[in-house]
């Protein structure tokens, strides 16, 4: 691999428990990769899972324990 090229070698699965999520938007704001987004009716949903770098900011900060980041499912 060429120097300076970052390859995403790991894939992450971002699981949102919609029964527990209250769409407070904390994950939407804290995610550095904008994985989460509000839908038009104000619900938070996982929109760009493939962008996830696994920092787990969402998991750590979700006050409703609704987000889980799982590592490694190879494609």
């Amino acid at each position, binding site marked *: 691999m060429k120097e300076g090229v970052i390859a995403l070698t790991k894939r992450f699965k971002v699981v949102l428990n919609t029964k527990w999520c*209250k*769409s407070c938007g*904390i994950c939407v704001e804290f995610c550095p990769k904008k994985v989460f987004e509000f839908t038009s009716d104000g619900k938070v949903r996982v929109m760009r899972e493939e962008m996830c770098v696994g920092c*787990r900011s969402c998991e750590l900060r979700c*006050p*409703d*324990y609704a987000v889980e980041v799982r590592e490694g499912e190879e494609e």
Partner: protein
Amino acid sequence: MLDIKKYLRLSKLPHIWCPGCGNGSVVRALIMAVDKLGLSKDEIVLFTGIGCSARTNVIVDFNTIQTTHGRTLAFATGFKLMRPDMKVIVITGDGDGAAIGGNHLIHAARRNIDITTILINNSIYGMTGGQYSPLSPQGTYATTAPYGNIEPSFDICKLVEAAGATFIARSTVYHIQLTADLIAKAIAHKGFSFIEVVSQCPVGYGRRNRMRTPYEMLMWQKEHAVLVQQAQRYSLEEMKDKFLIGELFVNKEKREYTELYEELRRKLAEGGEG
């Protein structure tokens, strides 16, 4: 990463707190601390009182006792004397702990009984509809202060220090890892340990005080908290609207109450004069 679900009563979730409430994060920090210390769920007794903070013991799978408003530390003191081998943790709020329970708080601190008290300070009475508390900053708005609160607030950490507690720390929900580390230190400390966690109430406090989202409130915490090790970098003027976080006070010399009580009990059982 830590599997938080191991420590929760899953049938009680989702919890009843409002969207963006900091209480859920404080529970997470507590669980991170318990996990770090390797304590089993059965050796912990969690006491709460009344208010939003009191709902923590519904979702956490420790031994849990919900008591009357503000009297949490009185119940916890009685229990700790009976079972000094158990880890007693009290979760209280700024209304429950600093107003109604203020008297119990200073006397538990004075005795230096081995209880860990976590005071979630969201600057408001959330459950009863947004009345100001003794920890609401002067000038802020509440349902009972529609023109701004004219009362100065307590520095609850200084109050507890003056009363005689031997481990005192402050953190915020934004600094969740620090909160977890401080809770772990507090649980490990022998004596009365006290942690104030500055939290957010987006519904009762935030929207009346020009912070419309939970995120804005978390950013407020980030911008206004100064780590105690870095405080000398700031001038007195700059520190005016900021507050210190981190380990604020530790005293390892003062004797712990249940130890003294046990010593006295033994002495009398052997026929001594006390």
